[in-house]
């Protein structure tokens, strides 16, 4: 079932090995748009973006702006913060 964000929401902290994920609703058909800032963007940027996109769609969202400020987070943290931000964005 397609889920829709009710509002913008953030999760995570600007700390080592963590990241801040901010999600915002986009118009129908916009897709998942990711703006990534990361110290390892050159090496892992594509991997991180694919992971975020997969997580967002697996959670049932298709039109989301995702702004990410990464501080060297491992994959499980990226996934967890993305899910938490989406969950927060669902609540009115």
């Amino acid at each position: 079932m397609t889920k829709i964000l009710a509002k913008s929401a953030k999760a995570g902290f600007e700390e080592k090995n963590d990241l801040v994920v901010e999600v915002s609703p986009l118009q129908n058909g916009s897709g998942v748009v990711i703006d990534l800032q990361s110290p390892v963007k050159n090496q892992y940027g594509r991997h991180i973006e694919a992971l975020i996109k997969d997580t967002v769609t697996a959670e049932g969202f298709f039109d989301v702006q995702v702004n990410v400020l990464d501080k060297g987070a491992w994959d499980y943290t990226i996934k967890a913060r993305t899910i938490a931000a989406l969950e927060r964005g669902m609540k009115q």
Partner: protein
Amino acid sequence: MNDPKTRLRRTMMFVPGNSPKMINSADIYGADSLMFDVEDAIAITEKDTARHLVANALKTLKFHSETVVRINHPTQTPFGMDDLKVILPSKPDMIRLPKVEDVSEVQLITDEIEKVEKENGWPEGTINIIGAIESVKGLYNVREICQQPRLIAIALGAEDFIANLKTQRTKTGIELYYARSQILMAARDAEIQCMDTVFSDVKDMEGFEREVTNSRDMGFDGKSVIHPKQITAVHRIYTPNDKQLTHALKVLAAFEDSLKNHKGVLAVDGKMIDGPIVVRAQRIVDQAKAAGIDVEKKREEI
């Protein structure tokens, strides 16, 4: 695989459940169990992010230590049931139920665990429970609580308990003597493990070692720890010395010999050996093995 009911739990280290940095490094210190905390270590506004972080860590990272998640209380707080919903599918070895006061709370969690085990086709007993007594009411019900089949260990949570008693922690530990004794008796009666509370002054290693030695001598199976540097001290204190290990190996050898040759009464070094002594000997050998002692070599030397 270690039997969850009997595996060594000399140390159970608290790991704040919303700190990726601490979760990433938690496994390198050699604690027997890691307890990811989404309860008191987490601000009310971050309960949701912590539970997702711990669940994803458990799904993704491979931990050598046993994994435990301390959830928020399922009826005293609005967070506990949501914790279970997110955490249980990530298959921790144990759920720590804080501030347990009544068997119904253990039953509630047991029901949730059973549901998830069935949904995922996991064998019954994949996820177990450790309860923490943190109030006088909980202490009064500890015998009944310990008899719950899914509960395989019980712990004392002293900080809340002494607040409830209207006193404070002392160096002698006199304020906790009754609670420690009662919890231990209930655990032994139910044949489950018993963990001692944390020692929060990380700088006072002398006081820490004294407390660990005392709780070991009382009969506790292990200690909750809050800093990696406390782990080595606990493991050292829980490591049997050469004399104890030699005696334990002799007891086990005599016991095996008696089974093989259908002998009745056993004696080692002039002392009679019976069932409990054999169990204790096995425990000493297990502790020695866990501490990295070459038990087989020692066995050959005897």
